[in-house]
């Protein structure tokens, strides 16, 4: 490709990406409501700008922090300064939202709800991207990225535990059903993780078998492909009829929890969706091991098992892990649908919220789902990098 000789002179004074993000932050602060106030949880909301929502001198502090963050993001500051600015912005946003909620909530009203407004969400979006961008520019090592995730989780936990946010509507919803929330959270995580584990236990050996039999492989991959294509709700539906029949007619099956509606169809559907990525990536991983490497292992006198465990599996691991990452993130999202068929999970709150038009309840289900999927993605990306590194050593 033709390279511009003027690349050096193009190094302008502002950072285009940072400037865009800074513009979003500024617009969010100036033109969008920081908070939303509702007389009750399903009534229409009324917006409050930062200077209306915050008490005393806080609007000024908020404005100054925003201006500083905007300036640093626009300038060509180095990555560490940008990171500091973005994180400061996020923490400031968290404090402002908590304080705004407490300030706006009419004292003594049990029904009024205060939630973050479009301005808060926009600022969260832009500042998170700025944080991510700064972290990318810092070129963190895999363990560094996991450490950053742990710190972020810690800060989030701190906010939740401190009670700063307890006047926010989402946490009000949480407070009134904390037992159910924790239970469904575990069901959700359990569904996602155990269906993945089952798929690994079945899929990896299956892939190694299919690797040897080309005709079988084509047929199996085609079948899994079709399975993967079927929308989750349809697959749940298709599983309900046979499972209901088994539950009703096979002795003991009902005792094992097999029934038309419940965890069983959800688990089986998630398992089915997990198979294709696991099998596919395992086959691809093993194919990536070169013939020469295999010959070298043979020449050193390794048995088939030794070759598998010491050479092929370690070399195929990064690719297999890529499949696992896809499945885990996908399962966390799909588990929401389990709420529809009585399988539990955070989808219960999402669908309850939808049917009651209660946004906060939807958020109570959706936000932890997104957070889990996001964290799983980061952790596995780091693991994949680590396993690659091992290989080049």
């Amino acid at each position, binding site marked *: 490709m033709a390279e511009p000789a003027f690349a050096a002179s193009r190094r302008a004074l502002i950072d285009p*990406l940072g400037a865009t993000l800074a513009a979003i932050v500024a617009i969010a602060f100036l033109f969008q409501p920081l908070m939303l106030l509702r007389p009750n949880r399903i009534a229409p909301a009324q917006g409050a700008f930062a200077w209306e929502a915050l008490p005393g001198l806080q609007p000024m502090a908020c404005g100054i922090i925003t201006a500083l963050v905007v300036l640093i993001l626009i300038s060509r500051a180095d990555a560490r300064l940008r990171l500091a600015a973005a994180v400061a912005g996020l923490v400031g946003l968290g404090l402002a939202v908590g304080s705004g909620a407490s300030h706006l909530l009419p004292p003594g009203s049990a029904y009024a709800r205060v939630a973050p407004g479009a301005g808060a969400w926009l600022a969260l979006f832009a500042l998170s991207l700025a944080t991510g961008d700064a972290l990318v520019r810092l070129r963190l090592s895999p363990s560094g990225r996991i450490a950053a995730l742990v710190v972020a989780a810690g800060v989030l936990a701190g906010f939740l535990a401190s009670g700063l946010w307890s006047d926010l509507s989402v946490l009000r919803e949480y407070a009134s059903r904390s037992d159910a929330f924790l239970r469904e959270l575990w069901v959700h995580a359990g569904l996602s993780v155990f269906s993945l584990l089952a798929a690994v236990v079945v899929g990896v050996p299956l892939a190694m078998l299919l690797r040897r039999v080309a005709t079988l492989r084509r047929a199996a991959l085609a079948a899994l492909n079709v399975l993967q294509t079927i929308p989750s709700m*349809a697959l749940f539906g298709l599983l309900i*009829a046979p499972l209901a029949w088994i539950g009703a007619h096979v002795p003991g099956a009902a005792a094992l929890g097999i029934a038309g509606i419940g965890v069983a169809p959800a688990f089986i559907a998630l398992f089915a969706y997990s198979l294709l990525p696991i099998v596919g990536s395992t086959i691809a991983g093993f194919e990536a091991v070169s013939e020469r490497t295999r010959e070298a292992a043979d020449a050193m006198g390794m048995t088939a098992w030794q070759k598998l465990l010491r050479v092929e599996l370690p070399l195929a691991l990064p690719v297999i892990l890529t499949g696992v990452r896809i499945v885990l993130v996908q399962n966390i999202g799909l588990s929401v649908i389990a709420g529809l068929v009585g399988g539990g999970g955070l989808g219960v709150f999402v669908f309850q919220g939808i049917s009651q038009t209660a946004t906060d309840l939807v958020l109570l289900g*959706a936000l932890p789902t997104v957070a889990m999927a996001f964290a799983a993605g980061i952790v596995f990306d780091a693991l994949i990098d680590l396993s690659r590194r091992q290989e080049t050593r």
Partner: protein
Amino acid sequence: MTPAAPVTPARLPTLLLLVCLMAFLAMPEAFSGLFAPLTRNGAAPIYTQAPLLFLTLNHLALVAAGTLAATIAAVGLAIATTRLAGLSFLPLARAVANIGQTFPPVAVLALTVPIFGFGPVPTLVALFLYGLLPIFETTLTGLTELAPEAREAATACGMTETQRLMKVELPLALPLILSGIRLSAVIALATATIGSTVAASTLGEVIISGLLTGNTAFVLQGGLVVAALAILLNEGFMLLEAIAARRAGRPSAKG
């Protein structure tokens, strides 16, 4: 060398599936005998609150509209971020796409309701937003990673940036872009099914009504029609991709 149209073994079952689906949608009552054993207490075996054919067409129209909008936006965005002027936005666009991918479609759907109210609009918005990502990613790959020598040759022949895009980069990327659209459309079909929870009238309505009334026949027929649509949609796009790949001068991998 390559036969004109490679007859893949999947072709015949696909046709059969298409015929069965059309027959069922045209006269669902004719099949009530098949579904009757799944009902209890004399409930109706076939969903009749809205004609299945109407729901199917509505479902497909939503998918088509959402995917079309997503295609235009995503391809445009990918082109913009791969030109010299947009290059510095590429990391941002990539990051948004990556984060977006961890958002489950249901969450997108649920969170659009407060903004747009119930009905088809939130579903359409969710289809659009969630459809962007696969198309953006594949278009990006197609524009930047395919045939680097051909792209350089285009420059060396004296093509302007626009000519290179239109005559070389886009035609070569087309099969990959189509595979992104296929992914989007399949996801859209699934999301539109869930869309009936926010009152979009799609085939999900049949499944949900079955779940609410304990009528397994509804659940099964809804599931079957959606599954058949998904498989047919996927196969149709695969066929298009194969044709496009041949036209882009890549003999199909199987051939």
